[in-house]
């Protein structure tokens, strides 16, 4: 392997005659072109796209074809391109889009392609080249990566600042594995030593005595020093698998947290926390959100017996992690990855507790996907109890969808402190916000919430009025009943459409109960000479509503109406008698799950 088969190290192109028209040269030029296109395609398209696979195959085919026809060949790299046999095979005037330059930059001066190359090897080769070629690969040392790719038939020749000379990647895979194989094979072949000995003899100073026997005794204590048990062989086999990158990252972070917990030195602890903060910044910068989550968990998993100063320092790290820029970055990431599983992300955001409510709430304004917004709403609903004012301040936001989601979150949080904010959003100019507010208010069992809900009875939007009517249940302080009664007493009651009329009277029945029965009975029996037909819907709605406030007299009245000559009235009365009351919210208003949702007009 140490044979120096490469051509000399003068990289100056020395054109020879017959460069043009030479089929071998033409084939090399064609190969270089295919190579370049393959690298660009692998860089450009995601691995799931069929194009990279197609170009990987083309590269393999072009290489195999040339090797079959012409055998081993060497390309010399310069900063301006590749040369073959002294003739330019691929020339580039700049460093952009220049494969040769990428190799040249890292000290690779020649690259040799040898017969026997297979598709797997060319794939690994192209992957390394693509990594180096892409913008993200600025820090990739191609020479190192090619070595680590273990290419047996694509070899490179490097000059190196460190080694001050030339170097050929010498060890083949077989050579690397030979020591391993011999270890495993020898271990199987040799059963191991099992002589017995005397411990006192062993402990008699380093010299003197029969060394072999003393070792034999040690081996007896230790066990078979050479043979491998099945478990050991299985363990060795497991080392062949590469360790996942994330495991090593976690390992490093785990050590930092062990230093924070284990050492009693405040300066070292502080240094270690500084490192974790830097790692967190880096994780955010490169969208390594798993790593960010581990770090966050590490900060929070400190034992209870740590010093107050350390506890405070860790808390300050958590607070720093709640920097708004971090959440802007996270928002971009979530927008770019709509399909991702949000379970762990939710845990991550929840782990901030009340320290980052403001920036997390601000995410609602820029998140593009419904599932992500719902996740954020859930997080705010869980963490928001300590920061109602921080979240509530967003009801003044100019964007309707932010206000609507905040209103829903406030509804989930509940409590008296959210009422003022919901009062504000209840009068929002956008119907969707008011709808969200109504939903939020329904979840709050407080008289103030009920009073705000009554505002919706006079809302300009019919749907909202209907939903508000459907939301009204028992009325403890009489506000709802009197509000509804004032609506019923309006002279234009008969102008209402039948559905709204029906909901109004039913809400009145639910809120007023027995107290409402008189008014409803009066409406049910009302049959003026003029306008009988106009009043019929009111009568029917009142009869239906009476089902909510059945009592002895009401039932008797319904019984009479059940025999009314007007079949519609009779049927309505019979239905009302059969009606089994259920809570108001479950009668007709579909219950909205928590969280959001931009529905109509969402962008």
């Amino acid at each position: 392997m140490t044979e120096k088969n490469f051509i000399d190290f003068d990289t100056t192109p020395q054109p020879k005659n017959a460069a043009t028209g030479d089929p071998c040269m033409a084939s090399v030029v064609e190969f270089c072109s295919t190579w370049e296109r393959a690298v660009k395609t692998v860089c450009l398209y995601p691995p799931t796209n069929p194009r990279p696979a197609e170009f990987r195959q083309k590269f393999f085919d072009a290489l195999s074809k040339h090797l079959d026809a012409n055998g081993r060949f060497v390309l010399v790299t310069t900063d301006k391109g590749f040369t073959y046999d002294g003739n330019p095979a691929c020339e580039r005037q700049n460093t952009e889009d220049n494969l040769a330059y990428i190799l040249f930059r890292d000290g690779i001066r020649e690259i040799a392609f040898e017969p026997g190359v297979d598709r797997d090897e060319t794939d690994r080769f192209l992957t390394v080249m693509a990594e180096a070629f892409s913008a993200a690969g600025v820090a990739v040392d191609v020479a190192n990566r090619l070595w680590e790719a273990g290419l047996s038939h694509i070899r490179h020749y490097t000059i190196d600042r460190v080694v001050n000379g030339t170097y050929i990647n010498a060890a083949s895979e077989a050579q690397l594995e030979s020591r391993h194989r011999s270890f495993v094979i020898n271990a199987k072949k040799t059963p191991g030593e099992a002589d017995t000995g005397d411990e006192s003899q062993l402990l008699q100073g380093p010299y003197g005595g029969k060394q072999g026997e003393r070792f034999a005794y040690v081996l007896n204590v230790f066990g078979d020093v050479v043979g491998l048990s099945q478990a050991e062989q299985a363990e060795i086999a497991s080392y062949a698998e590469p360790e996942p990158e994330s495991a090593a990252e976690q390992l490093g972070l785990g050590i930092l947290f062990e230093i924070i917990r284990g050492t009693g030195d405040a300066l070292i602890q502080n240094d270690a926390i500084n490192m974790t903060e830097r790692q967190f910044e880096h994780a955010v910068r490169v969208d390594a959100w798993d790593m960010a989550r581990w770090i966050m968990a590490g900060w929070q998993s400190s034992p209870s017996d740590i010093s107050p100063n350390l506890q405070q320092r860790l808390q300050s790290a958590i607070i720093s992690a709640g920097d708004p820029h971090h959440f802007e970055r996270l928002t971009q990431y979530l927008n770019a990855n709509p399909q991702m599983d949000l379970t762990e992300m939710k845990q991550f955001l929840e782990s901030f507790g009340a320290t980052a409510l403001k920036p997390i709430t601000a995410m609602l304004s820029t998140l593009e996907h419904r599932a992500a917004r719902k996740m954020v709403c859930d997080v705010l609903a869980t963490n928001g109890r300590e920061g109602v004012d921080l979240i509530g301040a967003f009801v003044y936001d100019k964007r309707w969808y932010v206000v609507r989601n905040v209103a829903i979150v406030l509804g989930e949080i509940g409590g008296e402190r959210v009422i003022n904010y919901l009062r504000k959003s209840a009068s929002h100019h956008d119907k969707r916000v008011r709808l969200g507010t109504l939903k939020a208010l329904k979840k709050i069992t407080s008289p103030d919430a009920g009073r705000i809900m009554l505002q919706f009875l006079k809302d300009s939007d019919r749907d909202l009025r209907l939903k508000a009517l459907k939301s009204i249940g028992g009325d403890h302080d009489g506000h709802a009943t009197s509000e509804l009664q004032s609506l019923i007493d309006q002279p234009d009651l008969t102008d209402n459409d039948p559905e709204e009329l029906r909901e109004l009277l039913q809400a009145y029945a639910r809120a007023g109960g027995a107290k409402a029965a008189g008014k409803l009975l009066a409406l049910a029996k009302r049959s003026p000479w003029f306008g009988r037909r106009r009043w019929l819907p009111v009568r029917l709605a009142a009869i239906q509503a009476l089902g909510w406030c059945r009592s002895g007299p009401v039932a008797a009245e319904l019984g009479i109406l059940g025999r009314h000559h007007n079949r519609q009235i009779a049927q309505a009365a019979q239905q009302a008698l059969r009606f089994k009351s259920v809570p108001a919210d479950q009668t007709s208003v579909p219950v909205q799950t928590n969280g959001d949702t931009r529905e109509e007009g969402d962008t």
Partner: protein
Amino acid sequence: MMRLVVSHVEPPAIPPATSTSAEPSILALPVLKALFAAWRAAGVYDENNNAYKSRRQELTAALAAVFATGADCVITYQNDYFFFNGQRLNYDREFSFGRSLAGRFTNLQLGGITISVNPPPGDLDQALLALASCDVRAERPYELLAETWTKLGLTGVTITPLAPKTSERLAMEQPGDTDPIVLRKRRAHALFHRTESVVQEYWEHVRDRNSFDASATRRIVHQLIDTIANDEEMLLEFTTLKEFDDYTYYHSVNVAIYSIAVGMRLGLGRVRLTQLGMAALFHDIGKVKLPQELIRKPEEFDENDWAQIKRHPTLGALTLASMRHIDAQIGTAMAGAFEHHLRMDGSGYPTLSRPRELHLYSRIIMLCDVFDAMTAGRVYQKVPTPPDEAMKRIVYKGRQWYDPLILKAFINVLGLFPVGTLARLSDGAVAVVTHNVPDDPFAPEVLIIRDRDGNPIRSHLRLKARETTAAEETIHIAEILDPKVEGINIHDYIAVNYRSEDRQDQTTIS
């Protein structure tokens, strides 16, 4: 006009002194500092400029202190080191500008400057201007400089060309050296010392700038892996050399060599072997943050010293974490640094808040570190332990402290009688173990150096396996001997010509 003394054909005559100093000479640093400043100023200002004059005066003052001793001022640069009147200077904090100065010497292919006592007036100025104005992009800058020197007729200041590095020369194929074994050995030896240079460089970078060139370190680890795959025995032979001045660096190299060899036994792939090699090279990086006097302390450590020393695993992990973001490489290197003094039974240091499972690389590095530290007698215990005794102690603590599987792999690498062990054979002859035979750790290859009558001889012998020796009367190791008691230097027989003194000679005397 006096005859100009310019030597650019023959290698420089470097003063014979080969000693190194722990601290730079009191006189050397001001001179080099002033020379560096004046050289830089000469490149920017003309000789009448006050800034230049001021630097020039500082140089004159520093030189006057040297001349007061009656000696010339001889500055030599070779093998990446500066020598001042024969005394080697280390690139410590005070000489941190040495790397920049070294860059100037290298660019000009300059190997030395000698300023004789009280040089003729004007010589120093002209020399500085010539140095500053020489075109470093020229094909042969030193020849250009020498030409200028001749033209100027400088007599009080002379220059010499840069000599090739020792490692390069060792690796060079000398005419007549056609024996492939010799050539491979030369290359292995050159790599061994290059690795030490890289280790030293990153220690200095970490200490001074808290950064290092990871790519360069990775490349050297790749070379180690390649060489161990092909010529493991040769590199293992070099690990027996323990007499270097900067043993801390060689310790890291040795641990890396052992670790990679063990990793290969365990079937680790290229990427994991690289990570392991890097982790091994960095395992003691925390010592950079400790006082260097403590690291070099020749006496046994007292309680306070130990308290300091025990901080280095933690400092090492923090140092690595501070370099850049934690990726697979840094994460595993941190494990190597943090865990290499922890033991499988939870003993060792640093103190942990809860038991932790040691990483594979840490378990490997821990074992290799212990073996090298014991046999060197330079790191924690100041008296070297013979290799077989070190191995015996390790095996005795096998299950308790170490991973038994890794210990088996380690024994497969070194044998139970590691290279360098001095033994009396069953026939009475004295021999040095030269190669381990993985097939049978009890029966290594030895070089017989004295026959049964005590007469010096040199004869290689492969001992036969123990199973056969029981039945037949064949030669086996009967007793281990202490080289000091026997008055034998094993490096007269293994790693011959590669001892530290030899290296020093080749370093300083051309």
